[in-house]
């Protein structure tokens, strides 16, 4: 496996808190090409710590591309240069000896920086609290096989449900729109028979909170889809727009 070590120059965003101004700081590091990107940062941090310096704050957990905790902008791209993977799945063999790498947090008005590379994405939870569910209580539900769902439908719903809530779509969008994230959840449920009864309520409520939180609007630039580590399709956005339109028509009808 192991090839020659890489000598790299890192330019990393450092910011001590939400209220303070940040800036790029230079670091030099030698790493194995078998290291993952985050292992490189671990090694840098271990070195900083042993020198008594404050390490770079960044978040990660599963390191398998499924929890959605990690997320850095690497050389201007959310989750880095390789498509359809999360930051934690990026390996150093994709870089060349002597490269300079720019590392920044996700940037969006609705994702304030907490420290260095850590941002606050709790807006996503608030959108979920507003309607990202099917209203059933524990117990008293029908047998799982009483609800027939065609394989293709289940599969399409699963495609949407694969979203890891990382926020790269927001960071990639020039308007900081959260449409891809919200539409993935709306679609997952709208496609399934279980989700149909409250489909209109759901989309209206989620969109309202999304707007209130200061996420921008969608102007169809497709940047979100390009950077999404799970390949969530913008078809979901079209579906959500349809759902939303129908919801508005329905509520108009009710007013009459």
């Amino acid at each position, binding site marked *: 496996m192991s090839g020659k070590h890489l000598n790299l120059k890192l330019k990393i965003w450092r910011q001590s808190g939400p209220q303070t101004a940040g800036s790029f700081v230079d670091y030099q590091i030698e790493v194995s*090409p078998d290291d993952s990107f985050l292992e490189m940062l671990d090694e840098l941090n271990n070195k900083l710590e042993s020198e008594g310096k404050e390490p770079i704050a960044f978040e990660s957990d599963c390191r398998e591309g499924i929890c959605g905790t990690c997320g850095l902008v690497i050389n201007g791209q959310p989750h880095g240069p390789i498509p359809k993977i999360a930051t934690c799945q990026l390996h150093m063999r994709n870089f060349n000896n002597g490269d300079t790498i720019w590392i920044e947090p996700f940037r969006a008005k609705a994702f304030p920086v907490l420290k260095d590379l850590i941002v606050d994405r*709790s807006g996503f939870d608030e959108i979920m609290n507003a309607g990202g569910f099917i209203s059933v209580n524990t117990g008293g*539900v029908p047998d799982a096989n009483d609800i027939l769902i065609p394989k293709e439908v289940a599969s399409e719903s699963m495609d949407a449900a694969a979203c890891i809530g990382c926020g790269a779509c927001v960071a990639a969008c020039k308007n900081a729109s959260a449409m891809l994230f919200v539409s993935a959840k709306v679609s997952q449920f709208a496609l399934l028979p279980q989700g149909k009864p409250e489909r209109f309520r759901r989309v209206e409520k989620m969109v309202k909170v999304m707007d209130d939180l200061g996420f921008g609007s969608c102007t169809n630039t497709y940047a979100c889809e390009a950077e999404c580590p799970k390949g969530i399709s913008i078809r979901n956005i079209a579906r959500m727009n349809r759902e939303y339109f129908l919801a508005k028509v329905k509520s108009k009808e009710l007013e009459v």
Partner: protein
Amino acid sequence: MVKLDSKIPEGHISEKWTNHKFNMKLINPANKRKYDVIVVGTGLAGASAAASLAELGYNVKAFTFHDSARRAHSISAQGGINAAKNYQNDGDSIYRLFYDTVKGGDFRAREANVYRLAEVSNNIIDQCVAQGVPFAREYGGLLDNRSFGGAQVSRTFYARGQTGQQLLLGAYSALSRQVGLGKVKMYSRREMLELVVVDGIARGIVCRNLVNGEIEKYSAHAVILATGGYSNVFFLSTNAMNCNTTAIWRAHKKGALFANPCFTQIHPTCLPVHGEGQSKLTLMSESLRNDGRIWVSKKKGDLREPNEIPEEERDYYLERKYPSFGNLSPRDISSRSAKEVFDEGRGAKGQEAVYLDFEDAIKRLGRKAIEEKYGNLFEIYETITGENPYNVPMKIYPAPHYTMGGLWVDYNLMSNIPGLFVLGEANFSDHGANRLGASALMQGLADGYFVIPYTIGNYLAADKPEKLSVDHTEFENVKKQTEDLTRKFISINGKQTVDDIHKRLGRIMWNKVGMSRNENGLKEAINEIRELREEFWKDVKVPGDDKDINQTLERAGRLADYLELAELMAVDALNRNESCGGHFREEYQTEEGEALRNDEEYTYVAAWEMEELGKWKLHKEDLQFEYVKLSTRSYK
């Protein structure tokens, strides 16, 4: 004086839970809102519990150190979740799932708990489908199943390779709904650091706010810990980076018994360590063993490329030693055999690794068929290692994966401290000495959706605990101690980093308290762990301050607890003079090298009470096997 009472209900095994549900005291709906419940952890166990309790009307406070409830480690489970639906008409039943789980646990689990788990397994699937979990389907629209982990029936439900993700997102959705309704107050980025016990009863917790460093106090009528497992004591494991033992360990130090700490599961198919910088290990699905053949060179120190080693110089050791199960031998046997060949100096290219080879399968079935079955996994492998498994055999090696041990709980999932309940991987209850594949997700959701909502009501109604104010002196004391401890980490100002010490602990544990253990090694490990602990408290370096995001400080606290738990794991392994499930003592094996149980003396749960650090008192809960007869497994 601690007294163990498992509170197993009377009656035939199939009626115990039903009878118990009927006999338990109820709280009328209007009164439930007068009770506050703290739930620590929002994995499958915690999120399902928090949502279900809130639906019933309780006021729930939910805590997680993550930025969002959805990030819990449960999200990374891949394979699937078991249930006894018998949708495939292949002879499955509640009784069979119960039987398999008791036997798989090598007869070290409580029969009554396991039966209940099998009994509610079917409700879990119904619940998840109602929530919109997109399980895999057949063309006819019915749910699809697969067989998993050596089971003879197809009882595993799955959502691609992302079952844990979909189940957790289902529970998280239910939780979000209750947060939106104001029935759950969500406290994210909070790490529970202490349990508050007054007059022997659990009254609340003390947390650190990970953003501003404040030490905060919370009180409630009952406290639930659903904080996951402790595999990261080994530093390298398949668990997420932040999994830790702090919540249950600090509760242990407040009097909660820790049961079977040495029962850990080592998973045979993980990616090997690539170098010093390795931060965690990645699990490769066990399904690969269906078609891949596992081998190493017959020669010691053979550094040739695998393709240069001729057929007759290869040792397909699992096929040789266990002809009837071969490459599909159970997790513990496969793991141990890999370590054996490495210890003999026969690791793949001298590394801690063995080959998992698809050459024959590709010849037999064609590349296309292999691609269809495993394409996704092969891609993952290539992303991580840079090698293409269609051309070069994969390298795999065992890694710590799951901890069967945990806080002792009775049938109601209550610890020996009244008011403290423990759910999911954090408790010891259902898997005995070995967990079967696809059973952890089942247990987490069983505990949270279908057990705790009943048993907590009974506790609140029967014991009538009072909620104390957070101004109570004990809350103040605990808060102060926690602040002092936090500052202490920073004030040591030594020379070694937290990770450097954690890696050293990991090596001790892997070599001496890992997948095979012996008396001498365990005694050495105890001494080495104690020495390392002393070093930690003298020489660790934690930069930064405590009133800010300080991830080194978080890791230092977690490591401090691992350095204590590690010792208890060794003590427990030393006490258990037998081999069973994931616990293999080299002194106790058959002539063929199989695990040798000692049912005469060790058919008990070892529940440890801490008297002082380094001194534990053993309490034994004897296990009765009335329904599944004690027998030895054989995979020859």
